[in-house]
């Protein structure tokens, strides 16, 4: 019974204030990491589509019709590394694309519709864009390669900015949390200075005293990190449901690294700090 009670006053080291901080910080860190993870994934999807959406447009030239150049282009495409497959876009689809510009029914048979090829790339192999462009212009002067390069660059830069920003937030939150924990531990040691002194004088070992500190912290830290994690996971779940984005287990597992690392970090800081302070005591 009484013999198992805590030796340090309740909440004197890891009180509700530290708990609230830990929970909030864990929550924010989860949000930041989650944001990076989902944007990374979304960007990956877009980039895949964009990279897959390489198109070649062949128009008539003075000497050659589009149809004439098509065979040469197909030969080049077949021997180019990094191209998985290609497909000629049917004429009706092209006309559909032009109609908003020309008005329905205005596209007639005598309008010089270009030939369009939709090229899928093979992700595993490097695709040499400039090489293909040069080869194409050699065999088919009316062929034009469009890789949406500028758009992709913009997107990649945006994602990169977001990644940097989120990392910044993660780092800041980590530093702030570590600071708070160190100060809280120091405050806890200060508050319990008399108690620690008495414990030393009646023959307690440093390890025994340190365990009292760690014990009080661990309960609290587990609880508050769990709260922070669950809060963040709920928000992501809500967002994913609203945006009908793909939601997967892996995401939540990766997110779990935040509370796990937080607890580990807090524990190491406290243990280290307490042991070092005790070694300087009576």
């Amino acid at each position, binding site marked *: *019974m*009484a*013999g198992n*009670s805590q*030796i340090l*006053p309740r909440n004197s080291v890891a009180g509700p204030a530290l708990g609230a901080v830990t929970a909030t910080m864990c929550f924010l860190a989860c949000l930041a990491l989650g944001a990076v993870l989902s944007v990374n994934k979304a960007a990956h999807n877009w980039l895949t589509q964009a990279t897959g959406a390489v198109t070649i447009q062949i128009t008539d030239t003075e000497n050659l019709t589009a149809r004439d150049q098509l065979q040469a282009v197909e030969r080049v495409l077949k021997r180019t590394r990094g191209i998985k497959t290609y497909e000629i876009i049917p004429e009706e689809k092209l006309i559909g694309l032009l109609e908003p510009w020309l008005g329905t029914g205005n596209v007639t048979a005598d309008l010089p519709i270009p030939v369009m090829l939709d090229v899928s790339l093979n992700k595993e192999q490097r695709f040499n864009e400039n090489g293909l462009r040069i080869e194409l212009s050699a065999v088919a002067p009316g062929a034009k390669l469009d890789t949406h390069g500028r758009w992709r660059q913009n997107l990649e830069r945006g994602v990169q900015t977001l990644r940097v920003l989120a990392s910044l937030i993660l780092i800041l939150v980590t530093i702030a949390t570590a600071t708070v924990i160190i100060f809280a531990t120091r405050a806890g040691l200060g508050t319990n200075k008399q108690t620690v002194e*008495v414990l030393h*004088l*009646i*023959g307690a070992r440093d390890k025994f005293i340190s365990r009292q500190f760690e014990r009080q912290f661990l309960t609290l830290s587990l609880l508050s990190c769990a709260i922070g994690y669950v809060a963040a996971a709920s928000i992501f779940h809500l967002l994913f449901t609203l945006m009908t984005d793909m939601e997967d287990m892996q995401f939540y597992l990766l997110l779990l690294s935040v509370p796990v690392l937080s607890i580990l970090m807090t524990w190491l800081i406290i243990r280290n700090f307490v042991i070092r302070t005790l070694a300087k005591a009576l």
Partner: protein
Amino acid sequence: MIRFENVSLRYDNNTDVLQDINFELKPGSFHFLTGSSGAGKTSLLKLIFLAGKPSGGKVFLFNQDSARLPRAALPEIRRRIGVVFQEFRLLDHLTIYENVSLPLRVCNIKETQYRSNILELMNWVGLGDRINAFPTTLSGGEQQRAAIARAVVGRPNVIIADEPTGNVDTEIGMRLMRLFAELNKQGTTILIATHDKQLWEGSPYPRLHLEQGSLVPTYGEY
């Protein structure tokens, strides 16, 4: 058991609180330590229970030089020395029972092994009905008795008591002195600092007398 050799002590650049102290406590002996307020009684006791190091000279505890003890060895030594602090130093957030059992808990002894001992001891010092009270709800004298119980509960080889009867009346004071005498008979070395003449006048035990930081001879032996 405890030996002081030319011990001196000063706190941060002030004049010496203790100067050239020499004495020995033999196993099973019983001494009083007297001196007026500020003479250095508490300072001397602190050197014994390892709450301070001498500025000069050597303090031998159980034949070991206290200045050369590695940090890891301190707990073992301290467990062999029971201390009644002048200001009690009970932990306010623990009950009297928990306070008194603390020296056993830090040795990782199971509660079942000591519970009945503690209850008996608490009755001895007249606190049997207050074991679950917190120190702040005890009277001054009751706190002092709890502090004494905590000092003796671990059956230490040496008991150091600083003004252990300053807050109790003569009757209870005598009762506590009988407790110390009883422990002494069982072999415990005892050193009691006090300014209370009644306590040592007419008692058979020798007295160490401090005056301005030095031990001065008293009538009889020391």
